[in-house]
């Protein structure tokens, strides 16, 4: 259950929408003419594309990379879609808005960029056949062989003022449906999203910082999610973890912070791609160390315990300063995993 981007999409929608109705936990009002997610199987390749009848949607990719000298790198490529009204319109009258975030992180540097675009004129969008997601000159393009799933091989490019990257992604495992067959319940009130992931990418490519190009290899994780319902008003922020263990298994987990004790959830993904949703509270997360970044204090070292799978690890930010000073500010960066399991992953924290 990837809730981190939901927050982002939500805040983006908030920034662009009229003052949100009070008590938007009320599903009828929050939906506002938008489609509601339904249970059922995904329909590929159509579901790789945009769902303009839903309020928010994203293509969210994070990559944990390593340079030839062993230096850890992180890369992020995100395309958000948010709709002012359901459906598509002609040209500038399209109600669809697009936002792109790209970042490169090293132990010393964290560089990011942001792009905004209107739908309807071709500046940003997603086509299904062939699969192509873009905003300005940032691209996510399929390289898959005919007959294979379009997301099984991707080319990825993006860049900002002082950085750029070009990565080739090759999936080594299947697409994983999150929640109940891709129907991901988000709250006791029944808010939900459609959600699937591709957590098994192998990556090769180049990262360029200040004109210096470095070859990199590593692993990446793609999340696809769309929904029409924002989250509860008392939720103050999220801590989200994607862990790629060296033994091939994956763990996605998050903590939802609120006025009370908070709420955690997790999905265990076996090396063959079989997902097992964990009951709420099965995952324990404990902040160990905080760092000052962008005038606030953010936890950059955590203890994560999932006793049911024998997981007891410490995750540490590669660069505590991985702050995204974008329109909607948040922390997003690569992490290193030590303890019962070893591996690499990504951490996202919002609301600090």
């Amino acid at each position: 259950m990837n809730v981190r981007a939901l927050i982002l999409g939500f805040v983006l929608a908030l920034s662009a929408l009229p003052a949100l109705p009070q008590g938007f936990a009320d599903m009828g009002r929050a939906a506002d003419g938008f489609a509601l997610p339904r249970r059922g199987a995904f329909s590929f390749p159509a579901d790789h594309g945009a769902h303009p009848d839903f309020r928010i949607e994203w293509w969210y990719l994070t990559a944990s990379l390593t340079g030839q000298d062993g230096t850890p790198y992180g890369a992020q490529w995100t395309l958000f879609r948010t709709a002012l009204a359901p459906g598509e319109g002609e040209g500038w009258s399209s109600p669809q808005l697009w936002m792109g975030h790209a970042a490169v992180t090293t132990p010393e540097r964290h560089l990011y960029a942001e792009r905004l675009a209107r739908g309807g004129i071709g500046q940003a969008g997603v086509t299904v056949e062939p699969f192509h997601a873009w905003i300005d000159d940032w691209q996510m393009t399929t390289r898959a062989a005919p007959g294979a799933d379009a997301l099984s091989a991707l080319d990825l490019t993006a860049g900002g003022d002082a950085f750029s990257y070009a990565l080739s992604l090759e999936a080594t495992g299947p697409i994983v449906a999150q929640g109940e067959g891709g129907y991901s319940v988000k709250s006791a009130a029944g808010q939900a999203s459609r959600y699937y992931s591709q957590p098994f990418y192998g990556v090769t490519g180049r990262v360029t910082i200040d004109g210096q190009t470095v070859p990199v290899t590593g692993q990446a994780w793609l999340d696809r999610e769309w929904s029409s319902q924002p989250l509860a008003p008392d939720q103050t922020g999220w801590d989200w973890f994607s862990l790629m263990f060296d033994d091939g298994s994956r763990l996605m987990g998050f903590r939802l912070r609120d006025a009370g004790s908070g709420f955690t959830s997790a999905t265990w993904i076996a090396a063959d791609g079989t997902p097992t949703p964990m009951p709420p509270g099965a995952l324990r997360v404990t902040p160990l160390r905080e760092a000052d970044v962008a005038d606030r204090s953010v936890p950059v070292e955590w203890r994560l315990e999932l006793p049911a799978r024998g997981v007891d690890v410490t995750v540490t930010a590669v660069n505590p300063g991985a702050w995204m000073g974008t329109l909607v500010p948040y922390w997003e960066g690569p992490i290193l995993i030590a303890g019962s399991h070893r591996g690499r992953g990504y951490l996202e924290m919002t609301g600090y």
Partner: protein
Amino acid sequence: MRAGLSALLSHWLRHPVQLAMLMLGLALATALWSGVQAINAEARASYDSAAAVLGQNRMERIVSQDGGPVAQDLYVALRRDGWKVSPVVEGRLPATDLRLLGIDPLTLPAGATSVPLRGGADLADFLSGGGRLYLNPETAAGLRPDGLPALRTDPGLPPGTGLTDVGVAQRLLGMEGRLSYLLVSPGAQPDRPLPQGLVRRAPDDGTDIARLTDSFHLNLTAFGFLAFAVGLFIVNSAIGLAFEQRRAMLRTLRALGLSARTLMGLVLLELLVLALAAGMTGIGLGYLVAAALLPDVAATLRGLYGAEVTGTLSLRPGWWLAGLGMAMAGTLLAAGQSLWRLWHLPLLAPAQPRAWARASARSLWRQGVAGAALLGLAAGLLAFGTGLGAGFGGLAALLIGAALCLPPVLILVTGLGGRMARGALVQWFWADTRQQVPGLSLALMALLLALAANIGVGTMVSSFRQTFVGWLDQRLASELYVTARSAQEARRLEAWLAPRTDAVLPILSAGTPLFGRPGEVYGITDHPTYRDNWPLLAALPDVWGRIAAGQGLMVNEQLYRAEALALGDAVDLPGGPLPVVGVYSDYGNPRPQVLMAPEALMARFPDTPRLRFGLRVDPDRAGALAAALVADFGLPDGAVVDQATLKALSLQVFERTFAVTAALNVLTLGIAGLAMVASLLTLSGLRLPQVAPVWAMGLTRRRLALLDFARTLLLAALTAMAALPLGLVLAWVLLAVVNVAAFGWRLPMQVFAGDLARLGGIALLAAGVAGLVPVLRLARIAPAALLRVFANER
């Protein structure tokens, strides 16, 4: 020290008229100067905010090379190639004065607009549904056309500008799929050339409109400065008089032990206090002057240059500080001579007032030489200089030089008069007149300048008006002008009109850069209407035939002079250059313009709409046809304009243009009159020692007063005679040099003798009124006062 100060100030209590004169002169001078400055500042602020509304003043733009619109697909292609550009659609909303700016807030560079559009409900409203139109409150109040998006006001926007979404603007302006230009974000851009047909343009800091209107503001500034200078003459004579009258008191104060330094400090303090008070009054008056003139100025700038200037005045601290500074500096300048004398006041010399008349002849001759040198400089500048700077520089040198030459010339003339005079009394009259010239010289110089300015500007305006009216008669040859709303309606209209008119002449126009400046191309049909009526300044043989054949084009006078074109020169246009075969005058248009056959225009600008037509009909039937066009054909009211209305409109713009000039002219002349009064009052007190002996020899006070009156009129008449040639030269410079540099057109000079005679009369009348007070005083002076001249040292 306090005693010293109260002694100094007591003088003003005893001479309230003198104080009033001093204050009035300074206040008026400051008022006109700061009023003009306020108008200029307001106008410039409007240009700046118009240029800054989208940050165009700081950001580069990408425009189409041919000056046309940029295809929206090209914009998307640039974005997808990594260019950080943002689309802008700009245009005048049909049937209004509103300049519409369409933007995309998502790609607009940060800080490009003052309108808060980042995030929140405003953004969502802006982007969704019918959109929003942001206007300055003043503009919003006057706008009521249908079909506009919901209005929002934002005081940060310049007048006459509406900000809306790019999609909305495209719809309102009929520019679907097309953009006016792309704004380039600051920062790195791809290291690749732009696609064919697009060019980058440097930030536009409003210089286009600023350059166009520069001459107009320079005109105003020159007038303001002239008025200030003339006002300073009043201040100078008032301070001089006060000093002369207080000479004895100053000497006494010094003898009582007040050091020269302290005394100087006290006098300076007194002057600064007076300057401060008068300066504040002047700034208050200046604000009123500016507020009264600004609507006219704004209307002029809109009519003449299409520049939007707000009609309301705001108080800028810089402006009133500068006004106060000018008042202080002016006072010190005007008091310089008196202060110098005070510093060198001989303690023991007799306190006899030394009339200014004693100024040595040598310094007068030196002044004459300096004046002649300035006149030479003026001649050089006007003959060999180019541009507005040389024009105004030449004017300044001419006026100051002539003013400096005036006193020596008057001395010469009065000397000549004395030599030719018969009889002791007449000889004394000439000699005494000559004696007075130095004392009155400043006032006479002020009068000369004011008169010359009046003659010069008056002649220019009259010449311009005459030419303009004649030109309008020829140029607006069609009886009716109609505009269709769509191409389809235009086709229907042409068919409907064909049997009802003598001729239907389509008027096509397209915007295109001409020699790198935004210009216009007009297409006009070959028809006797044009062949017979259009005034041409220069043309090759069979000019209309060549144009009809598409073998050439005509340029307007502005372009012809600005680019120093000659007949036969080629003008670069999309679709290949064309040679110039004729030149026509085009008053009132600040932009370059060319004229060609409609077929040639359509071949080069295929998108040009064919919507406007000139109609030739029997003038008696024009009214009925206009009514039929509205009633039977169904055109909206404003779409049909008859010749007379159009002429009246054009003349109205013209009259407004010079309303401000006329107002400043009258005020300047008024100040010059005041300067005369001040100087004559000063002199009348000082001249007693010279008048008393003549009285003692038997001349009655009445005759003495009459002689004095005659003398004042004689000097004013001589000055007016000197002002006449000076004013005519001034008019010539304005018409042949300044107008060409400022507006791009040259006008034939026409002298109106009646106007000149009337002005001469006004000058004499002003001098007469100014001379009346001292003359009456002399006629009624107590004989004892005259006797006292012999009794004591006074």
